[in-house]
């Protein structure tokens, strides 16, 4: 046979069929270059396999049942007494940006009757999925450049990352994997919903939002839930259209 080349690693890994293995073995008997090559890839494989197996960092892998205990939203809930408070926060951001600008939340984008965000966050059974979506949608409706977002993210010591590119997430209000209240709302761009808060697996509250065909995930360095105002400002700085 000609030099087996790529087959040498497969030979080493016992990933060849019987005929291939026999052919490679026969070739190795007669070819010093291939024996050297086999030794080389073997030592590389051994070097990698000798790397220590690292423990997963704390919180990555849940203890049994730990996930379900984390359905608490005190931080966020305490900071958001209701939709009115949220809208005030949004306006507050705008006012900090420029005192002469009118409030950036147009009245007609806020549905007239919405459940308080606190009851949304608490998973109040009287609040249906649609109402949750609307309440959160209203909370996230705002405006406008990428550099600006970077600066805003730094100031808030928030971390912004694209979660999923070109792959709209379908998450139902208050339901994920059949567990209620881990989710605060839904993000489905096709249905016009903008963003919401979700708990991460390790219990660090995060905000998610969709903008310009990408998902963003926001979390603070402190492990506290990102304030709605921060998320709104980030969306604004990104120039997201609602």
């Amino acid at each position, binding site marked *: 046979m000609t030099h087996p*080349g*790529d*087959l*040498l*690693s*497969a030979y080493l*890994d016992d*990933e060849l069929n019987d005929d291939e293995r026999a052919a490679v073995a026969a070739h190795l008997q007669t070819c010093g270059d291939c024996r050297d*090559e086999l030794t*080389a*890839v073997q*030592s*590389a*494989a051994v*070097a*990698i*396999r*000798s*790397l*220590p*197996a*690292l*423990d*997963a*960092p704390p919180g*990555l*892998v*849940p203890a*049994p049942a730990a*996930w379900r205990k984390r359905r608490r939203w005190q931080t966020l809930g305490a900071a958001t007494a209701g939709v009115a408070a949220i809208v005030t926060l949004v306006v507050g951001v705008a006012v900090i940006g420029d005192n002469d600008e009118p409030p950036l939340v147009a009245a007609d984008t806020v549905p007239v009757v919405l459940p308080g965000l606190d009851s949304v966050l608490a998973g109040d059974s009287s609040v249906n999925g649609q109402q949750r979506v609307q309440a959160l949608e209203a909370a996230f409706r705002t405006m406008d450049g990428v550099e600006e977002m*970077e600066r805003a993210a*730094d100031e808030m010591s928030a971390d912004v*990352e*694209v*979660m*999923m*590119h070109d792959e709209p*997430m379908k*998450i139902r209000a208050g339901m*994920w*994997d059949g567990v209620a209240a881990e989710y605060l709302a839904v993000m489905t761009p096709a249905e016009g919903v903008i963003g919401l808060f979700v708990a*991460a*697996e*390790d219990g660090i509250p995060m905000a998610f939002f969709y903008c310009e065909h*990408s998902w963003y995930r926001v979390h603070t360095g402190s492990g506290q839930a990102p304030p709605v105002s921060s998320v709104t400002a980030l969306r604004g700085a990104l120039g997201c259209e609602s």
Partner: protein
Amino acid sequence: MPDQEIPTWEEVARRDGRKIYNFAYRLTGNPDDAKDLAQEVLLRVRKGLRTYTPGSFDGWLWRITRNAFLDQVRYRKRRPESALPEDDRGVGPSAPPPDEVLDSVRLSDEVQAALVELPYEFREAVVMADVVGLSYEEIAEAADIPVGTVRSRIHRGRKMLKERLS
């Protein structure tokens, strides 16, 4: 695991969380990136399990892991790094570790550094085979490439690594 069983998210996290983290760590050489990536993978697994149809679970899981990593890389390209990775080893016991420990840390560092220099396709194939322990078949499924390509990438990846280490 038998192909017919669909695990719960928690089972996946407990059984494969550490492997996913090690994969991510060896691919990136950075603990923060690795944790972020592992979290992202578990998030996608959790979401994806609802629509998962029985098949090769490992192929499915590692495809998700790979896609999450590639999405992260794609995004990082658009956003310059703000800080250098932190070195956790700065904090340690005050007594100097014995020489053999130092040697093994140094060796690991060299291997890790050589690994992250490999072009992605080769690094991925080598890490999947030698860190995670996937079969060539599983790697082919995860990376959506023919088994022949897997053989080639693993072999060339190891050769490149060997050259960088000598």
